[in-house]
């Protein structure tokens, strides 16, 4: 659909400009409010650096968890055929549309002290609530769909021709996965992982509800911004800018290529894997 023809009507360009402005204008307004004289001291305060460090560490851990859980999930959704597949996909994508605070409440009733699994964990001496683990769980919960969606799309557009060939040549399923499938969708996997990282970095609602807020343990950068806002608007704006900068760097790194979600897959394969 997107190959060749690129005549964009002028009115589309106008609306596109409005859309871009809608995103950029609030960012510009925020930048305009930054107290530059105080910027460095504000973002290098102990509380800020602790929050930034915690955010980066937890987002990295969440991304690893997302890859570990999300890759198999995307494979099953893209390649498998079983009853309830569409239903499973809908549920996996649910955190995308769920308000994060709802995710936090759901996690609370799962891993909380009185929760479904939390009670057994507590007996085993594992405390999830108010720990950094809780932050990672909250971030993984909201970020997982980003990885699954990106990777499933890449898997579908890559098609299964090469995998079939490898299998007929005698490769075992695990070998096919390792030597053919994963290298084929690596760009999609990378962009999915980056999106998950970015989403984890911005996680706020579920963390606040589920993990609490303590410096160095659960107070990530978004929570620090929310707290600073109560007393020090300059600090909140400075930290917001820091978070935007980190997000821009992260997303920019992954979207350097023109088509990160998959190599030109050839049209027959792209349509070969229809919906079940």
């Amino acid at each position, binding site marked *: 659909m997107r190959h060749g023809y690129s005549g964009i009507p002028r009115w589309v360009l106008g609306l596109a400009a409005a859309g871009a402005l809608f995103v950029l204008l609030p960012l510009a307004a925020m930048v305009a409010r930054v107290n530059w004289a105080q910027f460095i001291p504000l973002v290098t305060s102990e509380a800020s650096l602790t929050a930034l460090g915690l955010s980066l560490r937890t987002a990295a851990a969440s991304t690893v968890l997302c890859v570990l859980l999300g890759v198999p999930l995307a494979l099953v959704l893209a390649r498998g055929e079983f009853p309830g597949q569409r239903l499973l996909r809908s549920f996996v994508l649910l955190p995308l549309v769920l308000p994060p605070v709802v995710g936090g409440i759901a996690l609370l009733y799962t891993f909380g002290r*009185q929760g479904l699994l939390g009670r057994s964990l507590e007996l085993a001496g594992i405390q999830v*609530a108010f720990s950094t683990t809780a932050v990672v769980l909250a971030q993984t919960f909201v970020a997982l769909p980003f990885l699954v969606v990106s990777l499933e799309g890449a898997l579908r557009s890559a098609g299964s021709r090469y995998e079939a060939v490898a299998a007929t040549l005698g490769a075992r399923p695990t070998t096919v996965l390792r030597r053919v499938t994963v290298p084929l969708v690596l760009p999609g996997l990378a962009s999915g992982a980056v999106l998950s990282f970015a989403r984890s970095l911005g996680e706020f609602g579920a963390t*606040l*509800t589920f993990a*609490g807020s303590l*410096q160095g343990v*659960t107070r990530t950068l978004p*929570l620090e911004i929310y*707290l600073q806002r*109560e007393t020090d608007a300059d600090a909140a704006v400075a930290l917001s800018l820091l978070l935007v900068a980190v997000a821009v760097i992260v997303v920019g790194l992954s979207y350097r290529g023109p088509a990160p979600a998959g190599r030109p897959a050839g049209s027959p394969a792209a349509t070969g894997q229809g919906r079940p």
Partner: protein
Amino acid sequence: MRLPGKAAALLLAAALAAGAAGCAAPDGGGGAGKTLTVFAAASLKAPFTALAREFEASHPGTRVALSFAGSADLATQLSQGAPADVFAAADQKNMAKVADAALVEGAPTDFASNVLAIAVPPANPANIGSFADLARPGTRLVVCAAQVPCGAAAATIAGRAGVALKPASEESAVTDVLGKVTSGEADAGLVYVTDVRAAGDKVKGIPFPESAYAVNKYPVAGVRTSRNKELAAAFIALVTGSEGQKILADAGFGRP
């Protein structure tokens, strides 16, 4: 999640005020069809809702639009030009912020006071009986962060009582502290007496004498840009009068 909520609330408030102005104009200021917008601290929700109904009953044709949020948020909204007629804050600091920007009419009046209490789950699993018990090792305590009024009060009390608190979490709002206690995540939380009262039987409240070290006074004032100054003054009179004081006392608030 909260920021869009706040923005939406702001837009809603603006829309309400715009609607009110549109409605009020044809009446020619006859007192009927007016909307009085009251910005009040979140902890005032129950008594101010009752007071608003009371006010509407005694001023036929007047509607009271209530906007509840954290005092700091309301102060920010007012300084950004949000239209309101009355501002009731939960602490002096946020009222001073608005007053310093010359946004209030006359001097603010203190109309209530509030103190902290210990909230524990109904079964009191950590067997908390006093303020000093909160520092016992293994007690999962949740308090407000020092940046918000309830956290500042907790820090003051802990300092004067010589008790070193080791909280598991420092929340940005007293409602979040209460939430951690009602869900059973925390063994104890420091909240206001009025929060314990409003939570009903979901938590058990434990008053403690050290709470007198930090008494929060609630000030109320009219907003300078209000177009309903007489109504605003009447509402403030209701709040500070005997009827308002009774409703506030029923909600657990102390005298100013």
